[in-house]
């Protein structure tokens, strides 16, 4: 085992230990925000695999999340509580008696989402650029509309309530770390290089013997699997799942995260997930009434938060096109160099400068 692997294992253990300890200390609000950060990181990583690493402009994440979330909701609600929710039309008897543990339901959700991606991949991945974006966005809406109309399975527009709430930070952070490690190993493998080659130049990649369609499908299916897992966790975190949660606007959060973090950077995506999710919470004061010197500031009302966020996104797109990390990854070496740079600043220098 080399030094880098050892460092990574220590870092992972430290994060998991911290998650385990904080789970007992923090209040439920802070815990929920931190859990959401980790879940958003999982979904953003899945989106970045397709958009940032393989160079395909896909906007289907909300749909894949819905598949994962509904799978978890359908199979984890205790059997005896189901009839109360499904009062318009009873639950389909084929699934009404099946209850699965959360982990099994999560994995099933991921697999169903991946299967769906595989099926729609055949027509959709023949498209490029904006056309691909529109097609994936369309499929994401189709999923939502199907779920709205399959009353006996998904309870339609009423949604599914009583999903056993998940608030265990250790479990969610473990899932996030597994996703990060998987993505890191995938991207640094020969398959990851093939994905990047497709991103850089499809014609050249093909001329170098990389089968475009096979690799695009791989990337798309893996992405859908993790979006399904993320969606399942999201559903379990909310405790209720209904179709309105999975509007296509949900995908924009993840687009914002990967653009801010850097298209093609795993660590950038994770950092941006925390910034955006915490930022969304912190900026809530924009939505509240603000009284300054007895004067009520008129623009402070619900919705201003989104305006501020839109402005931030425009600033990023205009001035920081590569995002926080570009295509680079955060590494121990980078941190060490940054530390050295800070120490090198005149402020930290002990000796007198020339001429003084």
């Amino acid at each position: 085992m080399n030094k880098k692997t050892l460092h990574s294992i220590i870092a992972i253990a430290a994060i998991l230990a911290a998650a385990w300890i904080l789970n007992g200390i923090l209040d439920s609000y802070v815990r929920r925000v931190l859990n959401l950060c980790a879940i958003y990181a999982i979904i953003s990583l899945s989106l970045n695999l397709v958009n940032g690493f393989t160079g395909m402009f896909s906007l289907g994440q909300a749909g894949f999340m819905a598949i994962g979330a509904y799978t978890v909701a359908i199979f984890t609600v205790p059997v005896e509580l189901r009839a109360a929710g499904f009062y318009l039309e009873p639950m389909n008897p084929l699934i009404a008696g099946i209850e699965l543990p959360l982990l099994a339901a999560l994995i099933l959700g991921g697999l169903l989402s991946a299967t769906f991606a595989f099926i729609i991949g055949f027509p959709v991945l023949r498209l490029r650029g904006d056309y691909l974006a529109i097609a994936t966005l369309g499929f994401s809406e189709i999923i939502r509309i199907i779920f709205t109309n399959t009353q006996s399975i998904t309870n339609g527009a009423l949604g599914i309530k009583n999903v056993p709430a998940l608030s265990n930070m250790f479990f969610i952070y473990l899932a996030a770390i597994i996703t990060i490690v998987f993505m890191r190993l995938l991207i640094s493998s020969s398959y990851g290089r093939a994905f990047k080659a497709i991103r850089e130049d499809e014609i050249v990649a093909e001329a170098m013997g990389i089968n475009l369609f096979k690799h695009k499908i791989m990337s798309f299916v893996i992405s859908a699997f993790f979006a399904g897992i993320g969606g399942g966790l999201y559903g379990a975190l909310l405790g209720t799942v209904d179709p309105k949660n999975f509007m296509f606007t949900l995908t924009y959060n993840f687009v914002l995260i990967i653009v801010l973090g850097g298209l093609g950077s795993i660590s950038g995506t994770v950092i941006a997930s925390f910034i955006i999710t915490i930022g969304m919470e912190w900026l809530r004061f924009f939505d509240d009434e603000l009284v300054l010197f007895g004067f009520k500031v008129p623009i402070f009302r619900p919705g201003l938060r989104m305006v501020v966020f839109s402005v931030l996104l425009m600033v990023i797109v205009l001035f920081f096109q590569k995002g926080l990390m570009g295509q680079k990854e955060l590494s121990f070496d980078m941190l060490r160099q940054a530390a050295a740079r800070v120490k090198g600043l005149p402020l930290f220098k002990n000796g007198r400068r020339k001429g003084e």
Partner: protein
Amino acid sequence: MMLEAENLTMRFGGVTAVDSLSLEVPENEIIALIGPNGAGKTTVFNMITGTYAPTSGKITFRGRDITARNPSYIAKQGIGRTFQNIRLFKGLTVFENVITAKHLHLKSNLFQAVFRISGLSPYPAEERKFIEETESLLEKLDLLDLRDATSTSLPYGKQRRLEIARALATNPSLLLLDEPAAGMNPQETIELARFIERIRDEFKITILLIEHHMDLVMDISKNIYVMDFGVNIAVGSPAEIQGDRRVIEAYLGSGD
């Protein structure tokens, strides 16, 4: 015969870019394809590599019919190419550009590649082999000292060389070079001629090249095919081509 093309025709709507071209590339030789701009030379390359499906005609590579096959299939059969305008993987380093081209030899599946535990997965051994081969290739082409430089930061000549290195990394038996000397001065062109002969001998490959620098073409080609407006107007050794009246007319125009 390494590569044979019979009556290749490529039409784009009403334009016939290539009109029943027949071509023979014998093993271990350097064959050139020349002609004025717009003669259809690059279209021939695109048909051989599968980027375009020919309107009619047949392409045989080492006895196997490869007409209109998928470009990645053709690359796997052993045809490598470079591009007229340098097309490197811009965001990647020199090393990454070359090792990426090794991917077509990978036997491990995706899960073996991700869960790469030595002993359980064949991937680590394959990856080690790729790294060794890539480094030895870079060394042979004098690019090893630039290993970690971003590909686009290289000077022009080195970028051309890197593109050839990347094509060689697929272990081709036929290498298609599309204007390798474009933008080079006479001195660099002479060096390139020696370089092309060297890689032919060292990697035991056959080379088909498109080129406008006549000194280079006459110097290294065994046989030359001349195209004009999609039609093959002459075939022959450099000496024969130099004396061919139709070739001179195609380049300089007729006297009347």
